[in-house]
């Protein structure tokens, strides 16, 4: 009898052992972001897929680098953005998170 009870308990254990049973909340971090011309495009496009932290923690970069990133988002990741808005995003990033170099 004792043996049967033990078997029964052991059989239930794997399910009971799950530590998280409900949805977890991943916190929102309010990264400080610079305001400026074309910020509206940044807000409507970039935030669809990633945080501001993902952008500003790339370090100060050249205009060619930022243009390349925007192109990657459009061509490789399918961002739905007009050519004009893509230029605006690049300009914003280079102005606020640039290293002053074109290349």
């Amino acid at each position, binding site marked *: 009898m004792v043996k049967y009870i033990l078997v029964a308990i052991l059989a239930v254990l*794997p*399910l009971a*052992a*799950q*530590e*998280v049973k*409900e*949805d*977890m*909340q*991943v*916190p*929102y*971090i309010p990264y400080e972001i610079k305001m400026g011309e074309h910020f509206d495009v940044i807000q409507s496009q970039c935030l*669809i*897929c*990633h*945080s501001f*932290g*993902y952008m500003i*923690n*790339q*370090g*100060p*970069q050249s205009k*060619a*680098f930022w243009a*390349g*990133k925007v192109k990657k988002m459009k061509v*490789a*990741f*399918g*961002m*739905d953005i007009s050519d004009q808005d893509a230029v605006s995003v690049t300009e914003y990033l280079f102005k606020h998170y640039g*290293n002053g170099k074109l*290349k």
Partner: protein
Amino acid sequence: MQRRDFFKKSLAVAGAAAVGSSLEAASQPKTGQKVSNVAFPQKRPMITYSDRPPLLESTRDVFSQAITPNDQFFVRWHMPEIPTHIDLKKYRLEVNGEVERELSFTLDQLKTEFEPVEVVSVLQCGGNGRSAYAPIAGGIQWGNGAVGNAKWKGARLKDILDRAGLKHEDFWISFYGLDKAAYYKTPNFIREMHHTELDDHVIVAYEMNGEELPYLNGYPVRLIIPGYYSDSWVKMLSNLTVTKKYQELFFMDVAYRVPDNATESEEPGSHKKIKTKPITTMNVKSMIGYPDNGTKVYLNSHLTVRGVAFDQGKGIKEVSVSIDGGKTWEAAILDDGKHGRYSFREFRYTFNPSKYGEQKIMTRATNLAGEVQPLAEEIGWNHGGYKYNGIDIVTIEVV
């Protein structure tokens, strides 16, 4: 590999001689970043580069012990939509493609129908230490903490594939996770490997340091590929697909690649299209866990430097320490290596700081294949900022 490292060094020196020291490609990665005041689920507060997708880095002090605690283990996701709840009644690991039998396993089946195996292995992001590169390489500017070491328990990938039955002797296998892109046109994060890269040490892990995996580290199961950078250690693993041919995938063909040459480096800013190769296996590295930059110690106090060293599994032979700026080196004491060749090895080195003011401490690992951790300035630049493994340097203050 030894040969390649030799070339790496000689080329870097030649480059420096020809153009002057301004060409130095790397220095120390950034250090001393503050942890966030917000903790992520199942984690202590960590250095937080992004919340969506979560990018969390461990602080230096974590690396004075061989096993990295689950709640301080670094986190790196590519896609923003990560399940924050897994219903084990519904969760399945699917095996399909060029197999005799398509199969589907519950977590419980993975635990009970296959021989459980354990491996202690380092998990390191290919971009760990990227912030050391100059000019700044593209990508998150990680310090040295996108790495950890854990005891993983799971089922051998080989055993799972054998159960399904392989149709071809030569095959590729692709790994899918449950994280999803936010936008339907974005390619999902899928990795693939050739069967020759997979050995008995590759497991589908359901346990990390004796606990279930934290969600942010891939609950309920993730792939463990000891010796390899973590780009193919797919988290929340949901699907193994066997194919006869290599599939062209964005995250294989474009990301996580280095120049395909002897030094795995390139001229910064040349913008030339060059041939690249996947980053694959990890190079030899040591890191100081204690003390930290700016730590104050008394003159002639017995200071014990602690840290960890690892490589791709060839095995650490020695960690040496220099307290005179690299002029002389002395062997540190290594732990007994009980965790195996894929694990962090702990080292310690005690000395009496004998001069007031700044004191530099440098550590250098050598593996059994004779590969030596290079000085940061000997490491050539690559545009993705991958595979940094410079000699670690900490500067303390003697008071």
